[in-house]
């Protein structure tokens, strides 16, 4: 088969900006999200959640709830199968302990965080269910809560779990102390490195827990039918992960479970696991009716997500000529109530950008009495970069070097071996930083008091992982494209565009869908900036097979050798004969039947991408409020399939990054109760808080993809916190060692200085 690779200048569809196919239903309110399912005879489920951060469940009395009119089923932890602690592969997401996943869906013996599910009710309507939940009586024996990594790692800290495997999100950690496991990586000779340094900077940072903040809550509807087959309608990043986890937790055959993915109202990493699903399933089984469960917003904040808080120490040494000679990082990240937070990705992202000959990092995955952390867009990276990129800025100013030149001098480049041991795949890291320097924003005058400019640079990676797609040619020349990955922000379009490019036809000929788990091959969820890149490759491979089959059909019609048929831009030809894609599709049924190609693959992982941001701020020294005056984000996306969507990913990432940098945090009281579980008090950026975000797209092709595409969905959430911290320093001369950099902290830092 001929190569499907295309150079940028030969692309016809990829790089254009067609209007998305699901858009019309979204502007008319017709798109069907998780909560838009209404089944006949459907009940509504509600959860009772723990008001305590850490406690033993002594007893649960559900009798009053059961007696309430309109209540059809009540369950608690004892209704779940007792499953062993066992680590189960989650594809390239690593391993997870199924017992932990079950316990997180509903506590059995112990509650481990404020909001931990304890019991649930299904009733005729949600109000009755909520009233019944209040009638459930639970007796607790309180235990002291551990609310941050330092408390959990203290010598005298009580052990939270009697049994806990080390974490294994993406890569395993090793057993270390009671509440923490560890990753250690090093190269060179760290002591010798610091001995050679002309300047050493050593700093300590803290970051708080924050949430993904998707506007659609977690919602699932489950029908456990009389044949013990389960159908789920749910809002998820991965219909297969939900299916398989559910089967494991309920100890039922995977073949009995079908998951129908609905439109996803935002996820950002937080909707790749089961929460409500097994609970709704058991309620449905008990009541013999379908059950819908939807979390209230306070439940979403108390019991799902979040992204970890962290305690970070950074020590870096630089030579007078600008060479970073040594670095030592200590990254202690919250895992939440169960092991397996994003510490490995904190380690990778903090060590991959610069060539540092003597480098060591100790990463810790720490159990705390908070909800189990889930990935949030570039999980683990913003925390580490908040620390490291501020120290980089400080080192550059110590040796009086331009901060971008300093970064260029120390950059990792294609082929360099990164700390985890793999080489950096091809991309032009220097071109990105040169474009920062060349951009008018970098040199624009910034006048006025208390104004400052900051930059930050980051690297992130695309996951490859198993994925599936199917192309079906219709007799009228239109094509159905099914892809295994839930579409979170336009991937039906970006995949159809790649298929159209490969087939040589117009993207308007496509109808694109994401089928249920029965109707397409397995895939890892939509995570890790992978769908447009990874499923894109599989779609292009499927298109190559469609073209090969159609060439055979043309050869049959013309009675020539199939090898003599060539195809370009949707026209098949051999000698002086030619036929269009559409005409040939029309002949499909009388030349051998339907043409449907189903393809699975597992494209390469750790495809790198880079981004750098410039931000201008003005700090109000009276209130500590940071106003963003101008923001420019540079990102290398390999090839922008749909530039509007790429800009949208960059802009959305930046604003989420601004939110975590300046505002967003969980406030717990001394007993470990969350005090700000609403969108009023958990304050995400509004349109008033941010300016327009200029997105500068760079395209250094990714050789692992036929059109050079890199995933673009995550990376730009990483730099805002450190770019803003550097800008604040430039504006008012203080180093911010705590994220979020909320007004009271900025004020305190300014007051401490003077």
């Amino acid at each position, binding site marked *: 088969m001929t190569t499907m690779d295309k150079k940028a200048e030969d692309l016809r569809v990829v790089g254009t900006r067609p209007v998305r196919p699901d858009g019309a239903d*979204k*502007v008319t309110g017709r798109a*069907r999200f998780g909560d838009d399912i209404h089944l006949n005879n459907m009940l509504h489920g509600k959860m009772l959640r723990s008001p305590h951060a850490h406690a033993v469940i002594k007893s649960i009395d559900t009798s009053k709830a059961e007696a309430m009119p309109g209540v059809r089923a009540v369950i608690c932890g004892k209704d779940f199968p007792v499953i062993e602690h066992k680590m189960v592969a989650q594809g390239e997401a690593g391993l997870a302990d199924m017992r932990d996943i079950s316990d997180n869906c509903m506590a059995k013996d112990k509650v481990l965080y404020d909001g931990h599910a304890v019991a649930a009710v299904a009733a005729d309507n949600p109000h009755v269910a909520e009233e019944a939940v209040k009638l459930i009586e639970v007796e607790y024996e309180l235990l002291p809560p551990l609310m941050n990594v330092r408390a959990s790692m203290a010598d005298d800290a009580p052990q939270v779990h009697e049994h806990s495997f080390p974490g294994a999100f993406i890569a395993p950690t090793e057993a270390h102390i009671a509440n923490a496991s560890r990753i250690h990586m090093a190269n060179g000779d760290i002591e010798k490195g610091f001995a050679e340094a002309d300047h050493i900077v050593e700093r300590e940072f803290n970051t708080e827990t924050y949430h993904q903040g998707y*506007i659609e*809550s977690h919602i699932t509807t489950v029908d456990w039918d009389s044949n013990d087959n389960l159908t789920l309608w749910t809002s998820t990043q991965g219909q297969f992960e939900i299916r398989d986890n559910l089967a494991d937790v309920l100890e039922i055959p995977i073949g009995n479970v079908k998951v129908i993915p609905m439109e996803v109202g935002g996820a950002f990493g937080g909707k790749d696991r089961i929460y409500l699903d097994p609970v709704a399933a058991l309620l449905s089984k008990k009541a013999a009716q379908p059950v819908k469960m939807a979390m209230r917003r306070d439940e979403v904040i108390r019991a799902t997500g979040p992204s970890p808080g962290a305690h970070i120490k950074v020590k870096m040494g630089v030579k007078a000529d600008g060479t970073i000679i040594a670095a030592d990082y200590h990254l202690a990240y919250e895992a939440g109530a169960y092991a397996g937070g994003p510490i490995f990705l904190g380690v990778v992202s903090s060590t991959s950008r610069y060539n540092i000959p003597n480098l060591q990092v100790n990463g810790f995955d720490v159990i705390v009495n908070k909800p189990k952390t889930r990935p949030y867009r570039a999980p683990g990276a913003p925390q580490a970069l908040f620390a490291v990129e501020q120290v980089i800025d400080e080192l550059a100013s110590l040796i009086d070097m331009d901060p971008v030149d300093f970064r260029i001098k120390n950059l990792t480049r294609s082929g360099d071996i990164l700390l985890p041991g793999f080489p950096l795949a091809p991309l032009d890291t220097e071109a990105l930083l040169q474009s920062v320097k060349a951009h008018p924003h970098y040199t624009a005058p910034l006048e006025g008091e208390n104004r400052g400019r900051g930059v930050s640079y980051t690297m992130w990676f695309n996951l490859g992982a198993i994925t599936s797609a199917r192309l079906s040619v219709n007799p009228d020349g239109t094509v159905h494209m099914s892809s295994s990955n839930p579409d979170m922000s336009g991937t039906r379009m970006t995949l159809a565009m790649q298929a159209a490019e490969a087939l040589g036809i117009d993207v308007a000929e496509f109808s694109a869908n994401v089928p249920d788990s029965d109707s397409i091959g397995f895939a890892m969820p939509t995570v890790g900036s992978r769908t447009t890149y990874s499923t894109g490759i599989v779609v292009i491979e499927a298109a190559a097979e469609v073209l090969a089959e159609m060439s055979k059909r043309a050869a049959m019609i013309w009675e020539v050798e199939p090898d003599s048929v060539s195809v370009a831009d949707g026209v098949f030809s051999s000698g002086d004969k030619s036929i269009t894609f559409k005409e040939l599709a029309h002949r499909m049924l009388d030349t051998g039947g339907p043409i449907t190609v189903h393809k699975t693959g597992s494209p390469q992982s750790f495809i790198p991408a880079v981004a750098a941001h410039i931000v201008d701020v003005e700090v109000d020294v009276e209130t500590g409020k940071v106003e963003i005056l101008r923001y420019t984000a540079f990102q290398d996306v390999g090839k922008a399939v749909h530039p509007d969507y790429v800009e*949208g990913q960059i*802009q959305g990432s930046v604003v*989420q990054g601004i939110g975590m940098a300046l505002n967003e945090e969980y406030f717990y009281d001394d007993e470990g109760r969350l005090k700000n579980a609403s*969108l009023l008090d958990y304050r995400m950026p509004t349109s008033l808080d*941010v300016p327009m975000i200029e997105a500068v797209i760079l395209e250094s092709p990714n050789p692992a993809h036929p059109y050079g595409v890199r995933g673009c969905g995550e990376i730009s959430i990483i730099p805002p916190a450190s770019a803003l911290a550097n800008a604040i320093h430039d504006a008012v001369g203080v180093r911010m060692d705590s994220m979020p950099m909320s007004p009271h902290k900025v004020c305190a830092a300014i007051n401490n200085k003077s």
Partner: protein
Amino acid sequence: MSKRHHVTTTINGEESDFLCEPRQSLLEVLRDVLKLTGAKEGCNDGNCGACSVLVDGVLVDSCCVLGVEAEGKQIDTIEGMAVNGELHPLQKAFLEETGMQCGICTPGFLMSSKALLEKNPQPDEAEIRHWLAGNLCRCTGYDKIIRAVQRAANEMAGEKV
């Protein structure tokens, strides 16, 4: 279960009636009783704007209005925004400017933007940002939403963009 009330109202220009309990919000009535699921629930406490509708021309969070309060009122929802299958200029502009990603916030932004342009047909960026600050979007960073509203305003004013 508390007693249900009979409520007569006008929804998207058509007379309508429904039964609802006093504790049911207008959002719940629209979505669960009338099966008009275009208005979305993001918070159920007035902080996200996903449930925005117009009551007698006034923009409200329908999660913070009771269903029984709809008695005798004119309710406008996203389902009534396109007329005879023709998208409203705001709807077109949100499509063309990619003013959405996941789309869960989109009906709310469209209703809010519509109310804005009815009040102020040529808002500047600051006015748009101020008006839309009651609607949360976690996906877009607002940039393309603001541009979509500007574009619709220009188109409605008969100007070329």
